[in-house]
C-alpha cells in the first residue's frame, strides 16, 4: 500500500491509475484514455466547475462530483459510465440547450464545436422544452475583431477567465445574473486586448467568433498546413487554414515551449497581407523608363547581367521575413558569386548581435525567480505573446520587473536572486548587456538574456550572416567586412538587390535612401506584393508569400522551425529558385532542387543548424 508519497492511486471505471497528488480526477481519467466531457474546464486555467458537464460518481460521496475540480485521493473509486452519470450528462446538456438557438447551420463554430460534438455523444437527442426560448443580442461586435453571439453563450466563463488569468487584462466580465447573464466589456466599449483571437479558440460554443473568418468556410472544407507566425520573432506555431487556395484564418498550433497555445491578434489577423487576392504582376524589366512585362528567364538574365557589371560594388538587402534557405542563398550570391561583402537585413539603426542573446529560452522565463523587462511595454509590443508567458510566470511567483532604465532594473533584483532573466528589444541590446553584467556581479545566481529581434526570421538573418561584418555562423570576416546599410549611399555602391520577402518587414526606405535609389545604375526588387520600390526598380522579380513556400525560420530564442506550403502558387517562382537562377546565370552552378537540399548545405556551413534538420528542433547557440 502506498504510504505518504507524492503519488496517489485511484480507480477510474475499474482501472487503477497512479498520478501525482493534487491531480484532478479529469486528468487522471485522461491518463487512462477515459473521456469525460467538459466545457468550462481548461488545462491552463483554474477549475471553476460552472458548466456541470463533467459530473461523475465517486464512491462514498453522496452526490455526483465535478471531475474538473476535485483532486484525486488515495483509494478513490470513480465511475464515469454509470446510468446515473449518463442521466446527469443528458440533463446538463438539455439545460444548456434550453436557450441555445441551435443555429448551427449558420454558425462558424459548427463542425468544430464542443457543444455540438458532446450533444451528439452524450446528449438526450431531443428537448422537452417547448416554450419560447430566451432571446439575446446576436452578432454583437465586441471589437472590430470579435463578434459575440449572446444566445449561443453557455456561460462557461472561459473567456472571462482568460482575460483574468491568462492575459490579466480583465476586459470581459459576466454582466447581470441568472438567466439574464451575458458576457460583455465595461459599458459595451470595444475590447482593446491584443489577445482577443484566443477567446474564439477557447470558446466551446459559437459565441465568440472572428470577424475576419466570418462565414468564410466550414471547418471540414479547410486545408490545414503547419507553419510559423510571420508577425514577430517569437516564433509562435500556427496552422494556416485555407479554402480554395485562399487563407481563411491562422489558428494556434500549441507549442508549450514557445507560445503555450496562444497567439496575439497582430499575428493571427495579419493574414490579409499574405493573401494573393489578385495577381501581383509578372517579372518585368525597365525599358525606356517603363516597366515592361517579361518572362522569368529574361528578368533573371537581365538581373544577373546588371549585377555582374556591378560586381563587388553590388549591395544586397534581404528582409528578416525570408526563410533561412533563401537567406543562405542570398549571402552566397553576394559573397561567393559577386565577391561583394555589402549585405544587410536591418532597417535604420545598427543592432549588433551574438549567440549569447538567446541564453534564456522563452519557456525558461517561468523557471526564473526574477525577470527584468527592460523597456517594459516596448518589449511586449515587439513580441506580444511574451506578455502571456510573463503573466503566467507572475502568477506562479516569478517577480517580473518592468523597467525603463538599467539602474531601476539593477535595483529591482535583490542580491539573493538565483535565476535571473533580462528581456529587451534589439534596440536596447547594449543596455541589456550592461544590465546583465551588473546583475552578474550583484546576484549570486545566474543571469541570462533574451533579445527580441526584429522580423520573424531576424534571428536567422543574423545566424546566416546577412550582416556586413559577420559570415554564416558569426564567422569573423578578417579584413573582408562590408559596409552596413546606413553607409551604402556613401560607399560607392552601384547596384542594389532588395529582397523584400514579407509585407510586414519591408525595406522601409527613408526619403534620403529613395533619392539614392534613384541615382543607382541598378535596383533589383524581388518582392511578393507590389511595393513603392517597384517605381525605382530596373528589374522586378515577383516571389512568393510565406504561406506559399516551405523552408525553415529561426525564432528569437534560436529555435529552427519548419514552415510548409499551404497555398499553391505554382505559376510564381519560388524565391530560392529566383536567387539560384540569378547566381547560375553568372556561372555559379548551384544544383538545388528543393529547399531541403539547401538546408543540407546550410547545415554544413552553420553546424548548429544541423541538429534542426529535418523536423522541428531547437538550436541554441552557446549550448553544449
Amino acid at each position, binding site marked *: 500500500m502506498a504510504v505518504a508519497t507524492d503519488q496517489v492511486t485511484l480507480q477510474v471505471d475499474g482501472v487503477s491509475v497512479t498520478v501525482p497528488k493534487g491531480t484532478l480526477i479529469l486528468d487522471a481519467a485522461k491518463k487512462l484514455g477515459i473521456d469525460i466531457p467538459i466545457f468550462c474546464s481548461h488545462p491552463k486555467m483554474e477549475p471553476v466547475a460552472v458548466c456541470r458537464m463533467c459530473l461523475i460518481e465517486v464512491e462514498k460521496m453522496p452526490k455526483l462530483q465535478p471531475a474538473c475540480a476535485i483532486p484525486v485521493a488515495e483509494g478513490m473509486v470513480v465511475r464515469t459510465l454509470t446510468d446515473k452519470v449518463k442521466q446527469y450528462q443528458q440533463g446538463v446538456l438539455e439545460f444548456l440547450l434550453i436557450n441555445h438557438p441551435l443555429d448551427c447551420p*449558420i454558425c462558424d463554430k*459548427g463542425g468544430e464545436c464542443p457543444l455540438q460534438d458532446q450533444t451528439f455523444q452524450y446528449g438526450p437527442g431531443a428537448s422537452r422544452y417547448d416554450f419560447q426560448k430566451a432571446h439575446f443580442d446576436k452578432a454583437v461586435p465586441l471589437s472590430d475583431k470579435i463578434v459575440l453571439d449572446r444566445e449561443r453563450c453557455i456561460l462557461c466563463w472561459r473567456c472571462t477567465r482568460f482575460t483574468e488569468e491568462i492575459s490579466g487584462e480583465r476586459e470581459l466580465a459576466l454582466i447581470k445574473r441568472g438567466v439574464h447573464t451575458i458576457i460583455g466589456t465595461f459599458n459595451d466599449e470595444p475590447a482593446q486586448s491584443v489577445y482577443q483571437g484566443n477567446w474564439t479558440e477557447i470558446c466551446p460554443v459559437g459565441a465568440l467568433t472572428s470577424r475576419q473568418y*466570418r*462565414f*468564410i468556410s*466550414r471547418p471540414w472544407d479547410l486545408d490545414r498546413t503547419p507553419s510559423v507566425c510571420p508577425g514577430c520573432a517569437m516564433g509562435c506555431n500556427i496552422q494556416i487554414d485555407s479554402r480554395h487556395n485562399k487563407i481563411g484564418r491562422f489558428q494556434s498550433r500549441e507549442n508549450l515551449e514557445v507560445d503555450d497555445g496562444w497567439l496575439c491578434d497582430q499575428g493571427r489577423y495579419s493574414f490579409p497581407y499574405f493573401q494573393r487576392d489578385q495577381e501581383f504582376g509578372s517579372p518585368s524589366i525597365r525599358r525606356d523608363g517603363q516597366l515592361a512585362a517579361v518572362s522569368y528567364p529574361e528578368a533573371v538574365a537581365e538581373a544577373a547581367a546588371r549585377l555582374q557589371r556591378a560586381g563587388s560594388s553590388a549591395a544586397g538587402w534581404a528582409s528578416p521575413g525570408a526563410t533561412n534557405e533563401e537567406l543562405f542563398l542570398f549571402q552566397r550570391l553576394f559573397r561567393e558569386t559577386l565577391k561583394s561583402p555589402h549585405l544587410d537585413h536591418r532597417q535604420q539603426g545598427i543592432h549588433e548581435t551574438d549567440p549569447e542573446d538567446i541564453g534564456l529560452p522563452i519557456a525558461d522565463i517561468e523557471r526564473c525567480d526574477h525577470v527584468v523587462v527592460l523597456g517594459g511595454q516596448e518589449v511586449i509590443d515587439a513580441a506580444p505573446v511574451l506578455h502571456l508567458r510573463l503573466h503566467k510566470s507572475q502568477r506562479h511567483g516569478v517577480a517580473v520587473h518592468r523597467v525603463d532604465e538599467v539602474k531601476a532594473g539593477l535595483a529591482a533584483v535583490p542580491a539573493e536572486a538565483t535565476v535571473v532573466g533580462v528581456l529587451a528589444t534589439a534596440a536596447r541590446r547594449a543596455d541589456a548587456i550592461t544590465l546583465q553584467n551588473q546583475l552578474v556581479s550583484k546576484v549570486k545566481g545566474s543571469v541570462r538574456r533574451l533579445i527580441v529581434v526584429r522580423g520573424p526570421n531576424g534571428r536567422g538573418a543574423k545566424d546566416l550572416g546577412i550582416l556586413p561584418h559577420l559570415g554564416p555562423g558569426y564567422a569573423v570576416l578578417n579584413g573582408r567586412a562590408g559596409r552596413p546599410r546606413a553607409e551604402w549611399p556613401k560607399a560607392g555602391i552601384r547596384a542594389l538587390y532588395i529582397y523584400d520577402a514579407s509585407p510586414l518587414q519591408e525595406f522601409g526606405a527613408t526619403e534620403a535612401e529613395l533619392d539614392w535609389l534613384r541615382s543607382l545604375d541598378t535596383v533589383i526588387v524581388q518582392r511578393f506584393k507590389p511595393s513603392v520600390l517597384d517605381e525605382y526598380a530596373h528589374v522586378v522579380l515577383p516571389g512568393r508569400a510565406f504561406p506559399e513556400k516551405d523552408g525553415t525560420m529561426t525564432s528569437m530564442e534560436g529555435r529552427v522551425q519548419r514552415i510548409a506550403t499551404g497555398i499553391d502558387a505554382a505559376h510564381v517562382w519560388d524565391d530560392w529558385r529566383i536567387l539560384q537562377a540569378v547566381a547560375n546565370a553568372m556561372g555559379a552552378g548551384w544544383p538545388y532542387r528543393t529547399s531541403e537540399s539547401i538546408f543540407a548545405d546550410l547545415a554544413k556551413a552553420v553546424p548548429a543548424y544541423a541538429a534542426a534538420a529535418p523536423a522541428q528542433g531547437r538550436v541554441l547557440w552557446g549550448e553544449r
Partner: protein
Amino acid sequence: MSDEDREVDGKPDQPTPLRGPDEGVPPHPEGKRPSVAADITALATGLKTTLGEFFSPAVTLEYPEDKSPRSERYRGRHYLRRYENGLERCIGCELCAAACPVGCILVIAAENTDENRVSPGERYAKTYEINMLRCIFCGYCEDACPVQAIVLGPEYELSDTSREKFIYTKEKLLEPLPPDVQARLDSKGPK
C-alpha cells in the same frame, strides 16, 4: 442444341463443335420436313399476334411530343426557393455541399447587412453552384437543407451544348418553380 444430341455424343460435358459452312442443315430430329399446312398454321399464328398488337392500345409514347407522367417524388433538376416576401431561403450553410456524395455543390457564404439583405438572418449564399454533370440526383441536398431552400423539381431534359452550361449558377437555380411543384410544397406547409 438439344439434350438428345449430347447424349448421342456420349460426352455430355463436351461442348458441341460449331458447324462449318459446308456442313449444311442438320436433319430434323423427327427425320422429315414439316408439311406446308403446318407452315401456314405457323404463319397465321404469328400474324394473329401481330394484328392483335396492332389494334391494341400502344404502351410507348411519342416522346418528345408526349411525355409520361412523373411521380411526385421524381428527382430532376434543382431549384432554390424564395420566401413569399422575395427573400432567398438559402442561408449559405453549405450542409447540402457537405451531404452531397459526389461533391457537385459549391457554396460560398457571406453576411447579410441591412443595406444588402438577401436572406433572413445573418448569412446567405453569395455563390451557389451545382455541377449538373456530376450530380446523381440522389436528393441528399434536399434532405440536408435545414430551411427547405433546395428542392429537386420534375425536369429531366437537361441536355445542353457545352460543359460550362451545366454549371447551374444561383441565378438559374432561383428560377421560379413550376406552379404544380410550388403548390405541392405549399400544401405541405413548409415552415
